[in-house]
């Protein structure tokens, strides 16, 4: 993980403004930032009060670093890249995850951020619990982790 990657698992609020300032590079003309924010509704679970994220903590940063390595292989023009996820309670409206990237031109800023969030949701060992009016259960649309051979390694 180079000094141009910001990879973090945090139990506090994600410092969006700080990351947005950090991600800018003088050689890059484009910055894209994606935030996943806690919603008040999840399919037919209405009145969601908060989310609780649980993680296999020692392996979250390594897995997110693999994603960053892969992203830089696919888009070598990326300047700075941030992948930050929260653990613990997240109230409605707060960000549970943030991906940010700077690139010389704009199309690839969208492409790399989108690829990173899609890959993070499919490969990083984190589980969301939803607490809504009259119920609590694990997040819907969970994704089966990849098999050994599917896991993107830093050598590919």
């Amino acid at each position: 993980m180079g000094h141009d990657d910001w990879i973090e698992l945090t139990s506090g609020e994600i410092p969006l403004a700080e990351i947005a300032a950090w991600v800018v590079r003088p050689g890059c003309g484009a910055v894209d930032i994606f935030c996943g924010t806690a919603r008040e509704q999840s399919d037919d679970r209405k009145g969601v009060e908060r989310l609780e994220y649980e993680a296999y903590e020692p392996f979250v940063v390594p897995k997110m670093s693999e994603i960053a390595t892969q992203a830089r292989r696919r888009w070598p023009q990326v300047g700075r890249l941030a992948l930050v996820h929260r653990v613990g309670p997240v109230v409605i409206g707060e960000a549970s995850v943030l991906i940010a990237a700077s690139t010389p031109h704009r199309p690839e800023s969208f492409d790399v951020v989108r690829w990173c969030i899609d890959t993070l949701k499919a490969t990083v060992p984190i589980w969301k619990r939803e607490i809504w009016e009259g119920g609590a259960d694990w997040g819907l649309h969970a994704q089966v982790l990849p098999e050994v051979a599917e896991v993107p390694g830093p050598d590919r």
Partner: protein
Amino acid sequence: MPSVLFFGPARDATGTRATLIEGRTLGEVVASTVERYGEELARLMPTCRVWLNGEPATPETPVKENDEIALLPPVSGG
């Protein structure tokens, strides 16, 4: 003895975050784990992945004294 960790729905199914379970291979440890915790965990297993010390591994992989095995149900980060 290797330790076995449970996350998300697997933690609900076992009622615990971690336990110690014997076995010479990853497959043996997983089989003993399912035997110990019963049907609710067994139902989850087809969609779970098993990691050994933070990496996916095959059932034939030998396990050692202080290895950490994790049962990972489908993930829902983001």
